[in-house]
């Protein structure tokens, strides 16, 4: 039905992933005590960014085929 759901999912994950990754890299580091010393924002942000990119790629390829 018109809209390929992979595109909004992809965009949202790219946006949130980039935000988390950026904050993890440049933001305060003392907050990671609670996550057992791991900078989970940065790591998980990158994973989400990658997932979002794959979704966007799949969605836009299907869109072009049409």
């Amino acid at each position, binding site marked *: *039905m*018109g*809209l390929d*759901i992979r595109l*909004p999912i992809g965009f*949202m994950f790219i946006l949130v992933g980039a935000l988390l990754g950026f904050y*993890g890299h440049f933001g305060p580091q003392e907050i990671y005590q609670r996550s*057992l010393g791991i900078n*989970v924002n940065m790591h998980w942000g990158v994973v989400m960014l990658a997932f979002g990119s794959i979704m966007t790629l799949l969605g836009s390829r299907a869109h072009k085929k049409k």
Partner: protein
Amino acid sequence: MELTAIDWLIMAIYFVFVLGIGFALKRYMKTSTDFFLSGRSIPAWIAGLAFISANLGAQEVIGMAASGAKYGIATSHFYWVGGVPAMVFVGIFMMPFYYGSRARSVPEYLKLRFDEKTRGFNAISFAVMTIFSSGISIYAMGLLLKLLLGWDFNVSVWVSAAIVLVYIFLGGLTSAIYNEVLQFFLIVFGFAPLVFLGLRDTGGWGGLQERLARVATENGYAAGAWSHSWKMLDDPSSNPMGIEWFGLAMGLGFVLSFGYWCTDFLVVQRAMAADSMLAARRTPLIAAVPKLIFPFLVILPGMIAIALTYKAGASGFALPKRPDGAFNYDLAIPMMLVHYFPTGLLGLGLTALMASFMSGMAGNVTAFNTVWTYDIYQSYIRKDASDEHYLWMGRMATVFGIVVSVAAAYVATVFNNIMDMLQLIFAFVNAPLFATFVLGMFWKRATGHGAFYGLLIGTLGAAAHHGLSLPKGALAGVKGGWFATLHTYPSEMAQNFWTAIYAWTACFIVTIVVSLATKPREDKDLVGLVWSLTERPKDEGSAWYLRPGFLGIIVMLLTILVNVIFW
């Protein structure tokens, strides 16, 4: 717990996308079929993820983690025994009738196969159930957000209800389905780091096992009671669930699970929206794959929480207690989120939690608006209106459904027992229904009178069993025994399973007896509705590895494998 700007920003992004999907789909909603059935245009993978996501409401997420803490890995029976097999069955054997009959809802199938009164009985009980489920979902959310973040109950309830309202009102079922797929990924990505951090805190799988052994022995069970799913089921007294394997296999594995996955329109509706018969049959099979994996996402955190409570890890996490001194198991996931997630990821985790509440609510509301419009309004109130009118009615039913759900949420705040009460009603209504469907689809001699009286007696049978039995240590009342106490079960769960078994058996026998005494319909009227009179769907057009039969076998083999691994 204080949130910072980045947490708020992540929540805001989610809300913008959820509403954006609704607005983007608005222009495609031209007919009532578009609104209620997504114009039967949804690809299998989307329908499959929505199928599982509609079931992944908050009660599921919160409740399964709570059970994981309370009963250990045996909670996985709700997935690997009480979920996947029934999903394979509905995909392979039942979907040909649901999809092939062109029925627009589960009650409408009952009308085509049996008669008007059977449809009416199911439509009305289902409509009431969905509204209350959705109400309880937002009630639980309001309560949780108040406890965790100190948010105002009224604001949380009304804002989340308004968001769900807007996206369904605009984009109908498609909007609900698309958002369910988004919510699915969000829930996975929001909770996965929790499992990682929790396991790290227990010192990995080995450390978790060692701690769980301690939980078991300190509670008077053998060391493996929390980490084995089948080993302790030979006797009700040797496992914390208080259940033996037969009650589990029959009550949960057969009656309750098949009753839910095969007849509940909330999930079946997602498959009915698929773009072809093949896609509809694949829908539950695709959904079965995440269902196999979810125990690691929702049950494991509960097990980690209880393990760390008995022997603390480096971070000092422990489950909070209720005023009466018992553990508050329901807070396992929420408290872990707040404990382990730093600002940023915390926003994501809370958004995932809210997404699960919303997907549960939206699933109920879309099932309600369809059953109301087609099975109640069009059948009994206004028969021959234009399609435009029914589309309008669907939107009005969405508004009405949401407003009544919110009202139900407020009712729940007044009555302490309403949750238990509703659980009970669900068991009464859902358990016998599967007998009606099995006989309806696979025995052409079953008649409308048989189905109706079978359902009625099955429901009353469930009530009678409940009224005559009581779980150990409970007081007579909403927990049972309100008639007399003839039997005491070791646990509430054992009582539930047996209530379902009695209800199913009563419905099965009465339907057969009454059917044999009444006049059957002619064969020609039952083509496409009954197994023996319907041509088998041909899958030759698709690759062998995509055929439902093959997918079903693979999923079942994987299910056996996980059961053996965690034996």
